[in-house]
């Protein structure tokens, strides 16, 4: 908790950077996402939406109390993803994946994909512009 003010400052600076950088780089502003923390979600894919302007990984996550919470994880444009080596069949319903995502600031169960680990252990670059401006939160055990 002592690091919180610094994290906030870093977050604000990141937001500034993002505000300047993104209108020219992306389909939409990324300011809806929390730049100060990330969530690490391990779950089962219900759908991999391979579309523009953005793709989505739809994910069911079993929580510690046994209930299932559904998350919509937005990806960048599938064009950027293809240029980074992504293919539409890399993720399919039923796959167990780990994603690191920047959550929506408004608390809705959705986030921006920053890292993904596929069932075979392979990780893919997200292709998100300025992905390194999102402060990472270590995974909670």
């Amino acid at each position: 908790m002592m690091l919180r003010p610094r994290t906030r400052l870093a977050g604000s600076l990141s937001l500034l950077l993002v505000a300047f950088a993104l209108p020219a780089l992306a389909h939409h502003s990324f300011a809806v996402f929390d730049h100060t923390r990330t969530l690490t979600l391990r779950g089962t894919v219900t759908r991999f939406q391979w579309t523009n302007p953005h793709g989505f990984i739809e994910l069911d996550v079993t929580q510690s109390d046994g209930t299932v919470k559904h998350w919509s994880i937005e990806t960048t444009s599938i064009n950027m993803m293809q240029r980074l080596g992504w293919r539409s069949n890399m993720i399919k319903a039923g796959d167990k994946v780990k994603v690191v995502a920047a959550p929506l600031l408004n608390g809705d169960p959705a986030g921006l994909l920053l890292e993904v680990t596929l069932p075979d252990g392979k990780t893919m670059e997200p292709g998100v512009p300025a992905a390194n401006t999102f402060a990472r939160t270590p995974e909670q055990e």
Partner: protein
Amino acid sequence: MPVQLRVVAAIVCGLVALAESGTGAQRAAAPEGRDVQVLRPVPDITGSWQRLGFTVGLRATEKPNPAFLPPAASQPPLKPQYLQERQQRLQAIREADAKGQPLANHNTACIPDGMPAMMNAVFPMEILQSRGQVTIIAEAYTQVRRILMDRPQKAPGDVEPSFYGHSAGRWEGDTLVVDTIGIKETVRFQNTPHSAEMRIRERIRLVAADILWNEITIEDPVTLEKPWTFTYAYQRMPDYTLLEYICEDNREYADEQGRQQIRIEKPN
């Protein structure tokens, strides 16, 4: 036919063939007293291009040679009233972003950028040279503009406002010179207001075998104090074929307050 004449004829035929095969050609002054039309080949700019040093979503490329990086972009020299309008808009965008409630814009609704923003090539673009036309396709939003070659520009009153306008082009030596009018006033570049009188002039030329510069000058007697010039540099992508881009399922939308939102599948 004397041998020399036959050689000349062969060269002329070859150049005409070159022109017809899509490489393009420019007319040279016919030698006095002759009714032949001599065609000279023009630079081959056909193919895929990406912004120089601009690698978002692309695998890291070599650092660009600084000699080919264009001059730094400048701010639009707007008249005070329009400068204020732009600054207020930029301030509103910054404030909304800082609150985590960004304002929706044309991209939220998957409306393409239009001219001249499409020339910033966020995603790669393709140039095609064919007889009488140079076509530029931007991968993002599958935007297409047609530059009609060696034809007079229309009168502004004869052009309906559109996203890409009406473009007339010609080769001046090694430079493709393009004049564009008729851009919709709602089609804004970097949140810069413009009038129906805006004219976009482009000078497109190879500065090296695989490096293309586009010097863009925007003129607008209503909104600008003076012409606004900036340059984009592009790098040839010899092995790249443009991908399709269709806004098939756009889950971003503008709410009642004009803020950008994301449709989630199962709200909890």
